[in-house]
Structures are given as C-alpha cells and as structure tokens.
C-alpha cells in the first residue's frame, strides 16, 4: 500500500516519533511539559478574551439579550423538541445522499468513449448543484413544485426539504467518492482484471470498497455540513429548530434562544467531529504500519 494513504493524508504529519532525542524518559517529560504549556497558554488566552468581552461597554446589554437564564430555560424545551424535525431530515437525507452520491461517482468514473454522455450528465449535475446556494434550491423546489398544481406532486414542505438537501449534498458527496475511487492505485484494477474480474466486478469488489474506506472521514464532514444546513428548510415553512428559536426570540425580544440552538448543534456535531478525527488518526496509523 502507498504511504500517506487517501486524499486527506498529510504526509507531513507522519514524522517518525523516534527522533534523535532518544530515550523514552526524555520524551515523556517533553510531553508533560508541552501539555502544561498548552494548558497555561489556553487558560491565559481565554481569560484575556473573556475579560475583554465582559468589560466591553455593551456587555450588560448583550448579556441581557443573549445570555438570559430565564429565557433560556423557558425556550429550551420547545427548541429541543423542534430539533427532532432536523434529525429526521438529516437522517433521511443522508441515506439518500450516500446512495445517490455513489451512483453519480460511479457514473462519472465509467471508462470509455461510449459512456461519455453519462459522464457529461453526471458532471453537469454536480456542477449545478454545487454551484447553487442551498436556500435557492429549497425555495425553488419548496414553493415552485407544489405551485405547478399537479395532484401527483407532493405539497409537503418536508418532502421538498429532503429532496433539496439530497440534490445538493449528493453533488458534494459524489465528488468525495470520486476522489476516493481515483486515489486507488491503477495497479489494483489491473490486478483485479488479471484475475479475470470484469470491469464492473473489479469496481464492485476491489475499487469501491477500498475507496469508501478512505473517504469515510470526508463523508462524515459532509454529514456535519448537512446537519447544519437542515435549518435552511425553515424558509419553506417547516418549523424546525432554527425557526422555533426565531419564534421564541421574537416573542421575547431576546436572542438567548439562538444560544440554546447553538448549544444543541454543538452537542450533536462535536462528538461527530471528534469521531472523524479518531478515524483519520486510525487510518493514518494503519497506513504508516503497513508501509513499513
């Protein structure tokens, strides 16, 4: 396997640990010291920033408007309740995105002149949906499609929200898949073909499984993006977490509900971001060991 694996590998991060500095004891002491320094500097920086904010002339007003305990307690249940709509949205959309994105990536990776129109269409699709701002797609589909007045076309804004998010994110995700597929060394396909696998079989059994493993971290990254973008569907009338916090905000003339909403997103996305990091690290370690 190649060193530094995957499109996300930063070869620079792979400096061997056993340097000229030698003994384990010295390394442990170094580690302890750097951790202490990091802690101290972090505390100092944040204390300074905190003091700066708290002593700003408008802090009292900002605190009243953004960090109001009573408003927080009053609005949190409704906000968390509304988040369930976002959860349904991103779970449903993510499944569709992973499937559609892979299909698009494979279509774009089909070799040979015969498949040129297919590649072209897949390319146009990804170009369009990566170019358009998400709000526009949601607005156009959410209000435009039901506006056609065709009975068979669903009117539910939730339905069109799922469709819009799937269209937008499958374009991104297909590019991630494609990067993964292209990162697999051509020798892999050559080997598969020499074993008698057809082109499709080698894609199915050799290339794609390896590619998907490599792109799991960037896929998780896009998943986090998708979670945040679910708030865009508030534009077509769905009362989800952002809209609910806006309602609470306007009812109280107080922006604390936004802070509550921000916390909900932090609670959900930070663990996922950590998980992504862990996966990247594991991949890197595996690549490093297998290359020795």
């Amino acid at each position, binding site marked *: 396997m190649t060193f530094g694996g995957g499109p996300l590998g930063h070869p620079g991060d792979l400096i061997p640990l056993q340097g000229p500095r030698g003994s384990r004891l010295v390394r442990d002491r170094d580690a302890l010291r750097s951790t202490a320094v990091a802690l101290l500097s972090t505390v100092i920086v944040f204390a300074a920033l905190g003091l700066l*904010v708290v002593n700003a002339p408008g802090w009292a007003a900002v*605190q009243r408007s953004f*960090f109001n305990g009573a408003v927080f307690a009053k609005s949190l249940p409704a906000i968390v309740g509304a988040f369930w709509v976002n959860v349904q949205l991103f779970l449903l959309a993510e499944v569709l995105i992973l499937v559609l994105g892979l299909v698009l990536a494979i279509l774009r990776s089909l070799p040979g002149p015969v498949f040129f129109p297919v590649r072209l269409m897949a390319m146009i699709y990804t170009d369009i949906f990566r170019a358009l701002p998400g709000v526009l797609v949601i607005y156009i589909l959410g209000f435009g499609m039901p506006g056609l007045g065709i009975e068979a076309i669903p009117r539910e804004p939730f339905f069109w929200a799922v469709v819009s998010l799937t269209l937008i994110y499958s374009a991104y995700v297909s590019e991630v898949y494609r990067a993964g597929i292209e990162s697999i060394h051509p020798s892999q396909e050559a080997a598969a073909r020499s074993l008698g696998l057809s082109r499709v079989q080698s894609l199915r059994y050799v290339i794609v499984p390896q590619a998907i493993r490599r792109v799991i971290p960037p896929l998780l990254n896009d998943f986090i993006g998708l979670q945040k973008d679910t708030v865009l569907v508030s*534009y077509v009338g769905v009362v989800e977490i952002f809209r609910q916090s806006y309602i609470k905000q306007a009812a109280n003339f107080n922006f604390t509900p936004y802070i509550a909403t921000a916390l909900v997103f932090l609670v959900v996305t930070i663990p996922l971001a950590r998980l992504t990091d862990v996966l990247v690290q594991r991949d890197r370690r595996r690549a490093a060991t297998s290359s020795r």
Partner: protein
Amino acid sequence: MRTPFRFAAALALTGALVGACSGAASPTPVPSPAPSVAPSAAPSIAATPAASPSEAAVLSPSPDPCAPANLKLVKAGAFTVGTDNPAYPPYFAPREGGNTSPWEGDFVGDPTTGQGFESAVAYAVADKLGFAKEKVAWIAVKFDNSYAPGPKAFDVYVAQVSYKPERAQTADLSDGYYFVNQAVVTLKSSPLAKATRISELAAYKFGAQAGTTSYDMIVNTIKPTKDPAVFDSNDAAITALKNKQIDGIVVDLPTAFFMTAVQLDNGVIVGQFPAPTGPDAEHFSMVLAKDSPLTGCVNQALAALKADGTLAQITKTWLSDKASAPAFKP
C-alpha cells in the same frame, strides 16, 4: 505524542469555553426589570380620558423635557423613524408616481408620504413633539434589529409591533396606538371559508409569519391538529396558500383586508377573533431604546392624539371598519 497533546489542548479549550459561558450566564441571572425610569411598560389606552388633565401638570415645569431642543435624538434636529422594508399597506401607502428609495416596489408603501395608518401616526406624533413634516427622517430597519442590543439607528420604530410584557424587558414599548384583532384568510374555494366558529378551525393547516402574534394565535387559540407552517414573510405565506400547502393564513385584520383586496385573487376573510379587551389586550406599540428618555414624550404625544380625536380620525381614514369582517363564535 501528537495525539495526547492535541486531545489535552482540545479538552482545555472546551473547558475554558464552558467555564467562560457559565461564568457569564450565572452571576446575574435575570435582568431584574429595572425600576422603569420612563412610564414605559404599562399600556394605558384604557386610561385615555384621564390623560389630558395630568398632561398639563407634566408640561408646567419651565424647561420642557419634551421640547425638540431638549430631546436626545439619534440625529440632532430630526425625528428619525424606523420601519421594516418593504412597508405594507394599509400601514404605509404607496406614493403616486412611484416610491422613493429605498422603499421601491409596486404596491408596497412609502413611509415618507404621510399616507397610510402608521405613517400618519408617526407624523402626528412628530407634529405633537414639535417636528414639522420635513424634520421627520425615515430609515429601513429590519424587525429583529429594532430590539437588538446596542445603539439604535432610530428614535422610534413603527412597524406593527405588538406589545408583550416579555418584549418590554428588552426595549421600551410605547403606549398602544391600535388594538389589533387577528383574522383568518383563505381562498373562497376552500372548505375553511365556511367556518364560523373557532372550534371548527382546529382541523385545518394554518400558516403565519414568523415571530408574530398571529403565530401565537394559531398555537394558543386555534390549537390545530396539524403543525402550523411558519414563513419569513406574509408573501411567502400567500404563496403557500395559493399552492394549497396551507389551508389558511392568520394575520392581523388590517393586513387581512389588504391581502384579500390586493394580494389574493379569490381571497376571503373567514373571520376575526373576538375583539381584545382590557389593558392587556394586544395592541401596537412603538419601539424605543430601553429606558429611552424619549418614551415618556412619545406617550404624552400619543395621549394628546387620543384626547383630541386625531388618532381616531387617522384610524378611520386608513383602516377598514372592524365590523365589516365576520367575527368567529367560540
């Protein structure tokens, strides 16, 4: 070595953040509703008849705090009024021959005309405070910005803002200048159009503009079985109604008249909710900076406009008679 280091740093970071946040939030939990400097909070439409005699007493001490020269204004010498853009009829009427910038639009209002209910009220208040028409400056301010912390760009903000005690903790809200009824609008073809009782409404899907008391009306009074839809603007709600994504829109009655007259081809007002009564009844207030010294003067001006019949006259000129829309039975 890299891993534990980064992890520790991340931990420390989150720790510091959490510490900073809770530290910020905990010491002063709720802003105790400051002993109001200006007579701001209590709505006093009900007390109108009593207002004029007491007014004389307020005005008698020689340096009049409400004289134009003594007022602390955003822009000296001018009375700056903020409102949302677009400004809608019947609160703001379009200018014949085209609206001035930034109020462009075909059938939306231009506040600088003095035409339209709130435009007229703002100019009347300015007049009572001693500002001639040309001394009134209008600026476009988004609703949320009217109560965001920080210095205000306006002296008063006039945009159908309903009084709520919670809101009065963040901004000064003037005495009311209009008691507002909420109403239901739908298409003539909808089965909802035949509803006459509030209890019949629960089966339908309603939409409203986000952050409005109309939405509260859906949740608290109609209590529908289907989740209400909420939109950025009434225009978006109208689109959804035409698309049959919702069965009806809840809006304030004057806007309902405008919608059915101008914005919807086959629109109809199904009914209005019972007229609000008492001092807590929903009413429109002007928004001012919290503890603004101007609030008392604006309230004085409003009281004078009520006492001399000007407000009633403006209301009659610009807003359709409430009685011309059917009222829901419980």
